[in-house]
């Protein structure tokens, strides 16, 4: 069973590691997921979990993922906003699979996934 003792060990291990987080790239990508009643009911939680898991798997340290309130387009939830290179991209009607694709193609490789963007729906 996981105990807080293990957390202490993890902390000591992390402190001893050199931090190579900021080296990966200077410009940060910000991702926001709408997490109001409308988003939650439409399935925003699994989408957020998929984004976080993908960031963890790919060791993306220059990506900040957070949640926000109602974006105002409840009909198109779950909505994911990606702020990258000074631009805002609004992905709508998201699913965990679509979220993984956005992480791979847009956040990592820099090519927005056009068919999921709001203008295409």
């Amino acid at each position: 069973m996981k105990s807080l003792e293990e957390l202490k060990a993890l902390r000591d291990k992390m402190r001893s590691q050199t931090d190579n987080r900021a080296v990966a790239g200077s410009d940060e990508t910000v991702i926001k997921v709408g997490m109001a009643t409308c988003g939650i009911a439409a399935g925003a939680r699994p989408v957020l979990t998929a984004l976080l898991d993908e960031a963890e798997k790919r060791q993306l340290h220059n990506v900040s993922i957070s949640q926000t309130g109602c974006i105002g387009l409840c009909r198109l939830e779950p909505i994911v906003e990606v702020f990258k290179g000074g631009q805002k991209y609004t992905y709508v009607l998201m699913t965990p699979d679509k979220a993984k694709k956005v992480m791979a193609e847009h956040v990592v490789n820099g090519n927005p996934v056009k068919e999921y963007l709001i203008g295409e729906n």
Partner: protein
Amino acid sequence: MRELALNVLDIAENSLAAGAKNIEILLWADFGEDKMRIDIKDDGCGMDEETVKKVTDPFTTSRKTRSVGMGLPLFRYSAESTGGRFEIRSEKGKGTEVFAEYRIGHIDRMPLGDFGGVVLQLITMNPQVDFLVTVECSDQKGALDTREIKEILGEIPLDTPEVRAFLKDYIRENLVSIYGGRL
């Protein structure tokens, strides 16, 4: 909403929007009594008496984008449709407590769903807020206090991937295992 855990997330989001610094979530179940309770208490800005009275009306909301607010009405309905009950207490400037009780065996009781995932999301996405999550079920009790965790971690943030992975397991083994798939 198809899972009670999503209602917990939704209500806790209200607490966060109310500027809460401390949020307490209690999940209590007694299979002998066929009862289950969810209690969410915060120290946010609270509401005045007028607002509390009409807050479970779906046409009451604090947001500006439209005049419909479904969070509390859905939570209330989830409990009352199982022959359970719902209560909300709030005091302006002090905080709010939302309480729901369910009959576990009632056919209309929604499954609890991914409660552990919701707890993980709440504590890692809101590191500036302290959470105390307690699960009590037939003499067994488990708790997670983010103050304890932050004290151990020191300067290392709660949302670091390695810490998140630890917390995921910690929640599964210390909270979810208490009711283990029975809710």
